């Protein structure tokens, strides 16, 4: 079956979710937000990582939601969790204490080192668009052992220079910059988009895997800097029938997050 034949058999969101879920193979403790990362983690639990533990920023550990949570603070996450703690414990003992192996982040802007902006478009003091700000993202970026970034590919987002650094990635091209700044985590590992997957090589975002139906040039045109392409460039595996079935029947039956 050719990629093009399947182009309408899955949505871009489903592609991102399946890719993210596979990246979680072998991971043990993952920090999740709502939306795509949440679905990806749940998919991983049902496929490659049955023992994966989900920690929510709201302080919930090992939730067993009876419905698709509306937010990370949904009461359905609390009932029947194994542990629910306050914010102080969450940030002190779980996150800064180094217990979180993997976390997902997204942002409005990303640069080639994987630094993220979710604070402001324009000048901080006189913003064009005021975005949500850090929340826990700055500390997640610093402390989680690995960061996976999920965001749609677009030239407006993949920029040469961020308007504001909310969450540090690899900071700069200087090797060991994170270590020098005392950051325990190893920073962004993957950027999973609707068109391709990027890895970081020597701290620089590098095109590593293209989703079927897209070309290197198309992808380069959505990135504001001269994009490096891996010599061992891959084609991203499609979501399997099993993965699609779990997403559609179990995880997001109303298509709230995955219909597009």
């Amino acid at each position, binding site marked *: 079956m050719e990629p093009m034949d399947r182009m309408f058999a899955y949505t871009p969101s489903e592609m991102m979710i399946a890719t993210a879920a596979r990246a979680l193979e072998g991971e043990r403790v993952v920090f999740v937000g709502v939306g795509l990362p949440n679905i990806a983690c749940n998919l991983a639990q049902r496929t490659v990582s049955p023992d994966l533990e989900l920690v929510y*920023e709201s302080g919930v550990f090992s939730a067993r939601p009876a419905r698709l949570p*509306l937010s990370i603070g949904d009461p359905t996450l609390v009932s029947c969790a194994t542990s629910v703690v*306050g914010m102080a414990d969450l940030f002190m003992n779980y996150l800064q204490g180094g217990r979180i192996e993997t976390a997902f982040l997204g942002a409005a802007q990303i640069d080639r080192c994987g630094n993220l902006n979710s604070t402001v478009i324009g000048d901080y003091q006189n913003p064009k668009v005021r975005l949500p700000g850090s929340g826990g993202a700055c*500390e997640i970026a610093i402390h989680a052992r690995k960061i996976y970034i999920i965001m749609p590919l677009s030239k407006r987002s993949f920029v040469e220079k961020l308007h504001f*650094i909310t969450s540090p990635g690899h900071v700069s091209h200087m090797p060991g910059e994170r270590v020098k700044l005392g*950051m325990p985590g190893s920073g962004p590992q993957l950027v999973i988009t609707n068109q391709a997957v990027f890895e970081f090589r020597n701290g620089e975002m590098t095109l590593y895997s293209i989703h079927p139906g897209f070309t290197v040039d198309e992808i380069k045109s959505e990135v504001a800097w001269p994009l490096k392409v891996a010599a061992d460039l891959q084609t991203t595996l499609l979501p399997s029938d099993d993965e699609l079935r779990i997403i559609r029947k179990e995880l997001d039956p109303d298509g709230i997050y995955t219909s597009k």
Partner: protein
Amino acid sequence: MKLNTMSDAIAKYVHNGDTIAIEGFTAFICFAAAHEILRQKLEGLTICRMTPDLIYDQMVAAGCVKKMVFSYLGNPGVGSLHCIRRAIENGIPNKIEIEEYSHFGMVGRYMAGAAGLPFFPLKSYLGADLAEVNPNICFVDNPYGKDRVAVVPALNPDVAIVHAQRCDRQGNTQLWGLIGMQKEVAFAAKHVIVVVEEIVLEDVIRSDPNRTLIPHIVVDSVVHQPYGAHPSYVQGYYDRDNKRYLAWEKVSRDQAATEAWLAEWVFGVDNWEGYLARLQAEEPNIWDRLAPGSAPSQPVNYGTYG
């Protein structure tokens, strides 16, 4: 006598120009208190919350806010906080000063405030821009190594308003679910108003002392206000009214529509009972729709010794 009406509690403890914190992470957000503050036409407030949520969106839209201290601006699971964006981006209805942290920064500020420490240390902010725009974020040398550690200053609000499931008449308060920073903000504040779904007998509290996160000695006023956190939720008592979070996304996009909403739902009623009556008129079965099923904790034995 600690047991007050919301109106009396706000009148007594909240003053023009005060720094207040109405906390609650997604849950326990005391809209009843915010609306009463608006009705009492308080002015020039500094409002602190990790996640300003709809509650501070409404307060900012009403024009009573001089400054906001926060760490995440969002309508959780829905979208933007349009009123706060209007104030920050366009000065509507007035320009507000902002003092911004990350979540952990706010956590540290409340912890230091509660603990009588001048500052709280955290490993954050290096490699990011927040410390560039917020001079309250500082760094100290680690005397045991060569690194530097970020510190944030204590936050001691004039008044904290803390919603919870239950307390006794003295104010010994128990809460469960997403306990967030409710304990720390109560210890950090100079005055504390506790708002609960239920007033229970002291014996209920005493049957499970580890569940009492806020002791009466830090509580100035107790308000019994069932459904006082609507449209947010209280674990085991009612669900989040997501329909109304979604509705706010539309209303709040326009200042005139927002003011019309405030005129109807805040200024058009006398008190929270009035708000609830209007709510029930609009949707008679609302509390059935939002009622959770039963999931009781299994008891533990504290034992008798004597």
